[in-house]
């Protein structure tokens, strides 16, 4: 998502004044709502040590019932406790750090690579396009989980490894979709017209084709936040990425999913957090597109 915005900045914003675009953005209620949500998550993540009532990995003796069941929200633990008697609220706050990095950086990187590959392969005829797309096919057909297990065994598990794996695996899908759209766009009349008028390749790609791809990029970028945050949990499970007891929203959901009937707060609270983060970026992304796209002014 972040990259989607940045690319738009580079291309379209040059025509409109950034300051006024920002003001127009703030005029949209939904966009402001999205910005506020993102701000809350960022603040929560950055200031987690000061906001969190407890250390995220501290297992409280009074955090479990005698039978070993977690406590529901309320009392000393505002969001309840998990299966080890840890405070869920503190874990959600600290988990935001991991999940923000995965959802924004890893996902953004995948989006950037995917868009570049897709647009290049889609626009250029001949062996460049075919070569790139066959490479994409290869990556798609390749068992990503196996790669993850191998990496886990070779490297020390870390957040950056998992970010790398996600970027490595996820760009493929974006590339495929962007490729298909670009091939279609490249044949449209207005592109042909630009070309006959002597426009350079760079100008056509970034001025005319990319803006048409922005909606797709926003869709993939924002939905990708949810899926990558959940994917991170699967990868942690296989030994890549953050290892317990470091929390992430994904692994909180993953650890507790079989308990969703007996301890629903352990699944639905982090689930809602993931959902809201993705939704917030989508609201801002949609609004940005409309604000920045000159043909869209006054609509939507």
């Amino acid at each position, binding site marked *: 998502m972040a990259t989607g915005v940045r690319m738009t900045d580079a291309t379209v914003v040059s025509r409109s004044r950034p300051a006024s675009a920002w003001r127009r953005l703030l005029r949209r209620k939904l966009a402001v709502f999205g910005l506020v949500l993102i701000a809350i998550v960022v603040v929560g993540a950055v200031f987690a040590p000061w906001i969190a009532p407890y250390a995220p990995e501290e297992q409280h003796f009074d955090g479990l019932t005698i039978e070993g069941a977690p406590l529901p929200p309320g009392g000393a633990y505002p969001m309840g406790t998990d299966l080890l008697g840890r405070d869920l609220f503190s874990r959600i706050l600290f988990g935001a750090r991991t999940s923000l990095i995965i959802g924004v950086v890893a996902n953004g990187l995948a989006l950037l690579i995917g868009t570049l590959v897709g647009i290049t392969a889609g626009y250029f005829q001949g062996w460049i396009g075919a070569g790139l797309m*066959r490479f994409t*096919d290869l990556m798609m057909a390749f068992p*990503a989980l196996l790669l993850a297990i191998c990496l886990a065994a*070779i490297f020390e598990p870390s957040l950056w490894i998992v970010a790398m794996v996600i970027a490595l695996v996820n760009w493929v899908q974006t590339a*495929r979709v962007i490729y298909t759209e670009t*091939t279609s766009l490249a044949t449209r009349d207005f592109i042909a017209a630009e070309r006959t008028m002597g426009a350079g390749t760079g100008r056509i790609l970034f001025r005319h084709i990319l803006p048409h791809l922005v909606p797709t990029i926003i*869709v993939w970028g924002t939905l990708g936040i949810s899926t990558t945050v959940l994917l991170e949990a699967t990868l942690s499970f296989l030994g890549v990425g953050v290892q317990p007891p470091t929390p992430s929203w994904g692994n909180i959901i993953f650890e507790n999913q079989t308990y969703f009937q007996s301890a629903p707060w352990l699944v639905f609270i982090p689930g809602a957090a*993931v*959902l809201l983060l993705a939704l917030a970026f989508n609201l801002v992304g949609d609004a940005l597109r409309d604000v920045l796209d000159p043909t869209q002014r006054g609509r*939507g």
Partner: protein
Amino acid sequence: MAAYLARRLIESLLILLGVSFITFFLLYVLPADPVRQIAGRSATPETVQIIREQLGLDQPFIVQYGRYLGGLVQGDLGRSYLQKTEVAELVWSRLPATLLLMVAAIFCELLIGVTLGVVAALSRGRPLDHVVMVGSFVAVSAPQFVVSLLLLYVFAVKLGWFPIGGYGTFAHLVLPALTLGLLGSGWYSRMMRSSMIDVLRQDFVRTARAKGLTRGRVILRHALPNAILPIIAMIGIDIGVFMGGIVVVESVFGWPGIGQLAWQAIQRVDIPIIMGVTLVSATTIVLGNLLADIICPMIDPRIKLR
């Protein structure tokens, strides 16, 4: 067209060769010894060595890979290290279930996703649009396990409309397909919506409207076929996702697909099974994407095959 197909098929073979090489290499460097899994806990180092030699695992990588390819050309996927069964038998007996579920799930995704996407595009900015958008985010953010079990609990256990898991009849297929369809529809509805909005803005749609065609006719005959293009690409991607991992849905619904086979084999480094499953799913994915590339020009004749 024939030349194009021939070239693409050759390229596909090369891709599969690449996939087999990388996978085999990763399994070779993987720090987990299959012989240890076979020989058991009380085996002496000598026994381990004998088994290693029997399986040819003491050979250098290139020899091992060469032998594997040699078998592959003759249609031999080898035998499982731990089960001793032919890998081909294990994979073929499970592949139909996977393919059936995949086709049914993609059908559900398209039905739900495209419909909602069109509806959202047409009611852009209105409450219905927002409802669809939030719904699509809920779908992609929801953990598979929870959704599968919730649907199973409500529709099979409580209401008794469907069997509680299993395989064989249409009734068995409905819930797993619907679960995957619902979860995956988020992507389709968002893509369809944005693609549709883009198409509706284009000149030829305006022209059609100006020519006096009804709104419904314009949408169905002109806008929809153009907007559906990215969706075709999505299906190609989806095949990859399905072949890569629907273990969770398979095990909740007791669906005998290859996901569970692969998962167990990875846990126990049963290399022949991992290779077999990888190659079969890679073939499906490559063919699926080839199909998508062939279908796109049929829908949008301006795109050329290349």
